């Protein structure tokens, strides 16, 4: 009885008008998509700059290229506060256990970009003390080619990662990852 009255009064106001109003201020979506949208536009990178690529990554953060336009300007140097590990530079055998530990300390969700030839594959250092790609110890989502990559290439890499996040691209390399230093 009471409900009918409310219904009646709503009808009196006009459903059409209420619908129009809500379309102006709201939209429908899945929760997953909203979360992914938030994540991809607020990546907090931890710049792990060990070598030349580190200097180019500074350029990316700097005034001309300005990574802030992609929502990723908050560089965090603590793995606990970051969700994107940018490996910018050569990783040596000596550094490998360190970066693995840094990766383990990051909280979920977490992503890794290998910036440059050295981080991707060891680059032109086919040498006795250089790890032949950081993916030997941690899972990498995006590889950026170049020695060092231009800032434009780095942005392209970050946009590729954003797309992966938005599309919920499966990441088996990460899901099946186990630390190479832990004995089973």
């Amino acid at each position, binding site marked *: 009885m009471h409900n009918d009255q409310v219904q009646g009064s709503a009808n009196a106001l006009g459903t059409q008008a209420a619908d129009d109003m809500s379309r102006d201020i709201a939209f429908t979506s899945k929760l997953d998509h909203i979360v992914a949208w938030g994540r991809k536009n607020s990546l907090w990178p931890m710049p792990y700059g060990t070598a030349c690529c580190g200097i180019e990554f500074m350029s990316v953060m700097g005034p001309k290229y300005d990574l802030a336009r992609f929502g990723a300007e908050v560089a965090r140097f603590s793995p606990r506060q970051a969700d994107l590990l940018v490996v910018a530079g050569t990783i040596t055998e000596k550094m490998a256990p360190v970066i693995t530990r840094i990766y383990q300390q990051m909280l979920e969700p977490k992503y890794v970009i290998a910036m440059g030839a050295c981080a991707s594959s060891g680059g*032109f250092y086919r040498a006795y003390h250089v790890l032949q790609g950081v993916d030997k110890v941690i899972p990498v989502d995006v590889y950026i080619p170049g020695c060092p990559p231009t800032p434009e290439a780095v942005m392209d890499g970050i946009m590729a990662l954003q797309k992966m996040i938005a599309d919920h691209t499966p990441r088996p390399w990460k899901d099946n990852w186990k630390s190479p230093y832990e004995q089973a």
Partner: protein
Amino acid sequence: MNKLENLKQLLAGKFKIENFKFIHAVGDDVLEVPKEDVPNLLMFLKESGQFDFLMDICGADYPTRDKRFDVVYNLFSSKDSSRLRIKAQVGEGESIGTALNAWRGADWFEREAYDMFGIVFDGHPNLRRILTHHQFVGHPLRKDYEADLQQPCTNSLPIHFNNEPGSPGDVLNDKYVPLNIGPAHTAMHGTLRVMAEMDGETIVRCNNEIGYLHRCFEKMAETHPYNQVIPYTDRLNYCSAPMNNIGYCKAVERLLGVEIPPKAQAMRIILAELSRVIDHTIAIGTGAMDLGALTSFFYMFGLREQVYGLFEKLCGARLTVSMTRVGGMAQDAPEGWFDEVLALCKELRRGTDEMAGMVVDNKIFIQRTRGICPVSAQDAIQWGYTGPMLRASGVNLDLRKATPYYGYDQLDFDVPVGTSGDIYDRYLVRFEEMRQSVRIIEQVCKNVPAGDYTIRDKGIVLPEKKDVYGNIEGLMNHFMLVIKGLRPPVGEVYDATEVANGELGFYLVSDGSANPYRLKVRPPCFAIYQSFPTVVKGAMLADAIATVASMNLIAGELDR
């Protein structure tokens, strides 16, 4: 020859000089001595005031020889700018006396020779590995070690200290708090590790570990032809890559006995000085950032990007340019490039002053740096400091003035010198050097010599592309040089240039083949950083961070 004769007379009677060999080759004075005489000889040369700097110690491996290793000492005298190379042969399983009693700066150089070759230095208190990791087996720069034989490392060393005489080594003291900083720490530039024992905020004892970016440059140089080594040199001090190219090519050219044309010299000076400016912008910008001043970083990078633009126009690359070749430059500058450099000079001048206003005139910055962790001139020389760090301590030594090359002696510029050797002076010196560099660039740009940008010796330089594709002679010359390679005569040379951080030396040995037989880099910040534990002892932790920043440590050249 004169210096050697003098030396001969001086040493006669004090040493058995009949066992010594006095050689003058490729412009260098060389003294070959039995290994037993080395420590006393070094001590004598220093005490008698003949040579005040020990620039470098390195090893070299000749497996076919009776006594397998050479230990090579490079000395320098700031009085008459002369150099002396002392060589001693050491067999496998033998040892040689340490040079530490004469120069404290011998410390890390000897550790490196031990790490790379397994040469044992008697009396060295802390002869551990320095560049390779602690689980590494063997000595990688020996000729019988495969260049690509990797050895995995599974963990990091716990906090440890140098076993200096009188200190209890790795035993931690319960009274103090052990503190590990880095290598993954903002202030440690990604690759440095500092371990300290803290009494409150004061550093009681400190040690630094390096090698996190040891990319085997010297082994790579031995396995690549001369011109292919140039891209590797880019990645030594990557903040000022062109200067490393120049230093390396200059050493090879001296060994070849060729002089590059005036235009190539002018272009190299311009590239070098532009690099000096942008290297200092990084040193200052990140230095200020380590002290909490973020703004200067953005201003600095604005300047840097403008110089990158010029590099890009010249060769297509921004950071690692590889613009020089043995014998000159890779290509000519594009039309109007020198005018653009001139136009940028105004901008650089304005930017430098603006940054100086923000950094060295800043009250907080002054309080954080003035009078902090000073290094006296005497200590600086002992440690082997060069470049702005040495000049901040009040020693007027700049290789561009002391042993001018490429016509630096024709140019009008000043060498800024500090007084107290504290952190503040180092930044003042760097700022003034930026201004002086701009002065140099302007003078060179205003009258660039006409002519070719490279020599045209077909045994050294590749013919131009149009000749390779256009005529049979060019094609053949190209083919021959690529197949046979550039082959300097048998011999060796030590050549140094003044780069942004100090003296960058290349000790190059050629056996007449297409690859260098041995290429040792004398990186300026290697000598500087070894003094760090001593310099910051007793200082506050925050001052140690400021000290690291002021040393401008570039891991690429520190660890190579």
